[in-house]
């Protein structure tokens, strides 16, 4: 068997990203500096539509922070330890789709899935109430933020969270989340 890196064709990747209109595609260390740059780029690209610009920007910030805080995939380089994440922003006729993915420990998968299922079962007013309830709770043990990022994203987009989980090995799964931001209200 040849090593997978030798089989990796950048041309295949190019073709894949070419099929849909990719606005941003990235896989690698998620750092604060990178987040700031991509967020500026997003504002720049959508400056002609303030509503979409604000929503895509806010969604990106929350989901990228989640990867930064919680991704189990780490890279060690130049004395730094960074979280690794994958993100993709595509442009279709009437919506932008933002996907992000990272490795999570298998033991957290059930909790993540049930959180998303709760969020997807609620309408707008229920989501607002749920967000307020969660925000009023004391900081969770593993939480580095307010613990309401996904609820906030569901509220901003008004669309369900599209989840995919693939078990990678006995310890980790690849967790990916896609959200849809419609171009018109």
């Amino acid at each position, binding site marked *: 068997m040849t090593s997978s890196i030798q089989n990796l064709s950048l041309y295949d990747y190019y073709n894949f990203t070419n099929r849909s209109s990719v606005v941003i595609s990235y896989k690698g260390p998620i750092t604060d500096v990178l987040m700031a740059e991509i967020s500026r780029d997003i504002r720049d690209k959508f400056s002609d539509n303030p509503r979409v610009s604000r929503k895509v920007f*806010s969604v990106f910030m929350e989901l990228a922070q989640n990867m930064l805080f919680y991704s189990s995939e780490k890279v060690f380089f130049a004395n730094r330890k960074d979280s690794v994440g994958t993100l993709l922003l595509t442009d279709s006729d009437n919506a932008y789709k933002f996907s992000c993915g990272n490795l999570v420990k298998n033991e957290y998968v059930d909790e993540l899935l049930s959180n998303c299922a709760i969020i997807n079962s609620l309408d707008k007013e229920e989501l607002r109430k749920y967000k307020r309830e969660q925000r009023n709770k004391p900081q969770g043990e593993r939480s580095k933020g307010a613990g309401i990022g996904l609820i906030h994203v569901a509220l901003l987009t008004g669309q369900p969270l599209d989840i995919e989980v693939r078990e990678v090995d006995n310890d980790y799964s690849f967790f990916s989340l896609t959200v849809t931001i419609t171009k018109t209200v």
Partner: protein
Amino acid sequence: METIKLDRLEFESENNTFFKPHILFDAETGECLIEGESYLEDTWEFYSKPMEWLRAYTTAEVKKPIDFKFKLSYFNTSSSKCILDILKLLKQYQENGGEVTVSWYYPEDDEDNLMEAEDFIADTGIDMKLVEY
């Protein structure tokens, strides 16, 4: 006992790797302002100074009025938890006889920002003037 001398508290805004809001608390006039964008490396640490200032101001012997203005065009969910803490403190001061006015400025057509303000009101029961800009 050490007395905390309350003065002006000011943080310049920053928009580099993180987005720091401009904060200006004036003990002389009771005018307090948080404006700009809020996304920080350590949200709790950043807001601990302003919270400390507010705690001292609202527990001083003489109850001075406070006029608080929020003008935030963007804040992440971590910052929203700190904003909630500030509003809870202001509500408590009001209930203890402090004179409090709060205004929330939101960008034109930004329904999400307005909804956040409404939810802060629902959460704290504080009167907040909502102003579009």
